[in-house]
């Protein structure tokens, strides 16, 4: 268990985040779950780059063992993407709250259904 501690943490974050997205109806909670899910990816990339006894990736004499810098760069990008997604998602939730008066997906579902299907029976909505 301890040997694969980092992997276990990664998987735990991944599964917990996904579970929140699936099970929670509250839109903000969903976004939090989504963020956790994304964080697991950061761990997945960065952890294997760390070498025991390695240093920061500085070019210079005497340093032969150093952490791989590439994952850090990649994950910086991924974090930016994640933050942007979260920001956009929260903005949308604010607008949804304004438009529907709620951020519970179940309560909005009825409104999404309107206008459906059977010709002539659709009901107008905003």
């Amino acid at each position, binding site marked *: 268990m301890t040997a694969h501690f980092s992997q276990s943490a990664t998987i735990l974050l991944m599964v917990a985040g996904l579970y929140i*997205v699936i099970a929670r109806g509250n839109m903000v909670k969903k976004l939090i779950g*989504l963020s956790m899910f994304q964080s697991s990816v950061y761990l*997945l990339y960065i952890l*294997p780059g760390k070498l025991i006894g390695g240093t920061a990736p500085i070019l210079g004499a005497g340093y032969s063992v150093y952490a791989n810098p590439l994952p850090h760069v990649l994950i910086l990008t991924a974090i930016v993407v994640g933050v942007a*997604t979260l920001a956009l998602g929260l903005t*949308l939730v604010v607008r949804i709250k304004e438009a529907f008066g709620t951020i519970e997906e179940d309560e909005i579902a009825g409104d999404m259904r309107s*206008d459906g299907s059977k010709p002539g029976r*659709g009901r107008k909505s905003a």
Partner: protein
Amino acid sequence: MIASHLPVLLIIVPLLGAVLAALSRHGFVAWLVALLASAATMAVAFALLWRVQAEGLISYRIGGWAPELGIEYRIDAVSAFIVVLVSAIAFLTMIYARRSVLAEISAERVAWFYTMLLLCVAGLLGIAATGDAFNAFVFLEVSSLATYTLIALGRDRRALVAAYQYLIVGTIGATLYVIGVGLIYLSTGTLNIGLIVERLASLQGSRALTVAEAFIVVGIALKLALFPLHAWLPNAYAYAPSAATVLLASTATKVAVYLLARYLFTVFGGDIDVGAIPISAILIGLSVAAMFIPSAAAIFQNDVKRILALSSVGQIGYITLGLALANQTGLTGGLLHLFNHALMKGAAFMAIGAVVYRAGTARLDDLSGIGRTMPWTVAALTIAGLALIGVPGTSGFVSKYYLILGALEAGLGWLAILIVASSLLAVLYVGRIVEVVWFREPAAVARECREAPLELLLPMWILAGATIWFGIDAEWPVGLAASAARVLLGGAP
């Protein structure tokens, strides 16, 4: 000099256009910038296609870094095919967008709309052009973030929910993809697709690789709305602004299909069953389900945009079926349908957008007899509908013909019959639309309408005309699709 930088120009031009459009803050200026940028992008794309056809694979190293460290753009017959399709549709969308957007989006947001449209195009082109797995993820997210915004700009408040839903689902999809890429990176130590292919050869049977494939395939399947992961799509397309719907329906899922094809064929090898997993069997099953179930649901809808959106899910089924068949003819059919479907759905959504522009509604009940007052618009919609059915003389027939040949070639006669039988459903949902708009007595809404303005009709009829043209003279798209299929199956570009 410029010629050697074409691959990167493909992305820089729309990106730069997006910045300019955002800075302009003025609707018309932003539109002009978007139009010029997309025209230039299209020119670049055609130049690339021409060079690829002449010289084969084009490799471009960003900043001159070696592929091990930097990002490489690789344009081969497959990417060129997609790039040309996306940029051409984007250009037509820009022509279409001006009037449509003025009617649907409040003035102060118009500039942002074009910014997002260009960002979306840049992202989509980037996915097709890049040869770097992680870079593809970044572009995927660039286009997705722009798409969420575009959808949320729709007039209906339900557009917000549709955008939110797509944001969650799209992010999960992209994250699953990047997890898969991470696993590959851990196994091979590189993100360059060319190098991955080289190094994977020695890693056959690795369990990490199998899991990576699972994550990548499912992640992309979410983005391309493969049944049963399609549920975000209908509402997103139905409530987005018309111009955005045109672009998304014609290009977004298509680029995701490209990405899937890249991984299935180029990365994981021509034999798409890896390990014990019968990917092709799963994909065929899901494709067939997509051909039938969402198409059946489309029959019961009352909003024309939703009918067309659900039909898109069905049509994607034909495309993925082509991938799953994994033989030259079937794959050609799939890619050809990708191309043809972009044209016909573009025309259909442009037509219904024009109807919304004049009539203010896309509800079928309200559109009785609108063919009398908007004959050209509704005629384009009808042509697109006939192509969706696969009527001979339209492009839809040619692609279905190749798919059927592919299925027969693979020895799956029953599949060939299912392909044809699923057209029955298209007959029903297209027939319902055609019957209402042409043969019913005009309702109040229809009587007050006039024909759509030329700016909307022109791009719509270019696409509708192409649908007919490529149904009769199919040489060019078939040639493109066939050479792309050859490249995917491991042949020379």
